[in-house]
């Protein structure tokens, strides 16, 4: 098959969990990578080596372990900066997940003064296909500040409806926050085009790249984003670590987020002054071993090459869309052209609830996600409450897609659907 990663077998060997036999003896077929990705041995080993040999708190410690730990942590920042093409390493802020990254922005905007301040009459624009983590923070912000939340609707084929782009993003717009790749529909959004319009009216652009960074070569500058969020556990890194990248000029204008150790310049009982970026936004002991694990993860992906991974995803996605089309009663939600979408494919199967589909697939070792995928409004837009989602990654094989399609046939017969 064209586009598949060469040496896919070798890559699969890097991921110990793929050898796993489940309780009923079935071989694991993991098709839930948009939910969380599996971890290569090198990420696990890097973390273990740190914990067993170099563990110490960073920045604060003058001793050798402290120096080793600090260097490894800051080297991870360098790696992440290079991976996303950040103009400066100081623009890379470590958070605990994409959700915290997005909340950091919405939260600090609530207390911003000057140009970035948000109040009555101001508007924040999101889209109907956002993950809850890019909806609720903006609801809280606009409710609390008396501003208005607006959003792009969706077309029937799961694209953003851009017909009212120029009305929706207007002189009142202060923030436009949107996902690059939808975790439910798979849609890849025209972020650069929307950012251009947002910048015309002086709004800042926040991009939720949680599903983009795992799958596409990402260059933050080319994207047009002012701020961009993603999460470590979806890029073969550990949980507990996320990233917020932001342009220095914007980050410098935002007030601090959490107060505490390492984000300060000086502290008196009555008043404190704050450190510059990135430390200003990294109060407390950061997720040290997690950042180091993330550094190893982006190294791993970079070594294979994001172009090659993207091509692999597209090949698998095309193959999956083909296979799913052969299942009677199955409807895919979102774009049907693999070249226009990411690798998460949500679908309905007439007559069977997603939970029941997932349960039958699980009995065959196939792990998919069933539910609203933290995108209830997008489901509501398509008149469904939930869906079943398969999502692939660099370790996914065509044989696994075959197993899914067979599993769906079996599901139909199990529930006696014709």
């Amino acid at each position, binding site marked *: 098959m064209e586009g598949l990663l060469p040496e896919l077998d070798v890559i699969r060997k890097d991921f110990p969990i793929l050898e796993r036999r489940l309780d*009923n003896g*079935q071989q694991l077929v993991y098709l839930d990578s948009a939910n969380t990705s599996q971890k290569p041995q090198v990420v696990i080993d890097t973390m273990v080596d740190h914990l067993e040999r170099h563990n110490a708190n960073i920045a604060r410690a003058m001793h050798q372990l402290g120096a080793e730990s600090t260097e490894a942590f800051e080297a991870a920042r360098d790696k992440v900066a290079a991976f996303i093409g950040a103009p400066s390493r100081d623009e890379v802020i470590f958070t605990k997940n994409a959700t915290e990254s997005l909340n950091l922005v919405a939260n600090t905007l609530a207390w911003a003064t000057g140009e970035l301040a948000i109040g009555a009459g101001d508007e924040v624009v999101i889209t109907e296909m956002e993950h809850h983590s890019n909806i609720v923070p903006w609801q809280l912000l606009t409710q609390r500040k008396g501003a208005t939340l607006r959003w792009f609707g969706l077309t029937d084929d799961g694209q953003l409806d851009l017909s009212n782009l120029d009305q929706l993003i207007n002189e009142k717009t202060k923030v436009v926050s949107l996902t690059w790749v939808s975790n439910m529909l798979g849609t890849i959004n025209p972020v650069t085009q929307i950012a251009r319009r947002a910048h015309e009216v002086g709004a800042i652009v926040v991009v939720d790249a949680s599903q983009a960074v795992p799958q596409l070569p990402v260059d933050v500058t080319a994207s047009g984003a002012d701020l961009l969020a993603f999460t470590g556990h979806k890029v073969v890194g550990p949980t507990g670590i996320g990233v917020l990248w932001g342009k220095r000029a914007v980050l410098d204008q935002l007030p601090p987020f959490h107060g505490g150790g390492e984000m300060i310049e000086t502290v008196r009982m009555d008043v404190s002054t704050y450190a510059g970026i990135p430390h200003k936004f990294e109060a407390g002991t950061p997720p040290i071993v997690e950042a180091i694990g993330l550094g190893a993860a982006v190294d791993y992906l970079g070594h294979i090459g994001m172009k090659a991974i993207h091509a692999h995803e597209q090949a698998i996605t095309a193959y999956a869309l083909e296979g799913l089309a052969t299942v009677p009663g199955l409807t895919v939600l979102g774009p049907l052209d693999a070249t226009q979408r990411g690798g998460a494919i949500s679908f309905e199967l007439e007559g069977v*609830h*997603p*939970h*029941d589909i997932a*349960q*039958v697939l699980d*009995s*065959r070792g196939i792990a998919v996600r*069933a*539910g*609203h995928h933290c995108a*209830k409004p997008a*489901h509501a837009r398509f008149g469904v*409450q*939930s869906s079943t989602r398969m999502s692939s990654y660099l370790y996914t094989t065509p044989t696994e897609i075959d197993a899914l399609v067979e599993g769906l046939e079996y599901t139909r017969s*199990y*529930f006696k659907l014709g």
Partner: protein
Amino acid sequence: MSTELDSLYQDIILDHAKRRLNAGLREPFEAEVHHVNPTCGDEVTLRLHLEGDVVRDISYDNQGCSISTASASVMTELLVGKTVAETQPIHDAFLEMMRGKGQVEPDEDVLEDAIAFAGAAKLTARIKCALLSWMAFQDALVRAQEDSDA
């Protein structure tokens, strides 16, 4: 493989998921509640009609998987016509079974058809499905009684 699935999807469950006894929203009612399973979005709107201390009607509108819809159906079959006092041991027994991680031996005399959910009790992810309408019933009962006290 099939045996595992079959112990979950017993015929009773698949039948109830298809027929859905007492489905639909009806008048009169003393309390109406709306419960959601936040993980998957399954929903139930449930109305309770008491006559004195007798559960005269439980009507509902729900969306969900076969476990959650069958559970609502089985529950109404079991509880409608009983006194409030009689419903409580059944409710408690069902909760105990579902939270028992498959270790609790259900009492068929009390639970009747509802023992079919013993298979779901073994699956962490499905416990909430089976409990959704039972929790809604209990909530409605509390509200109906509060209102009649007031």
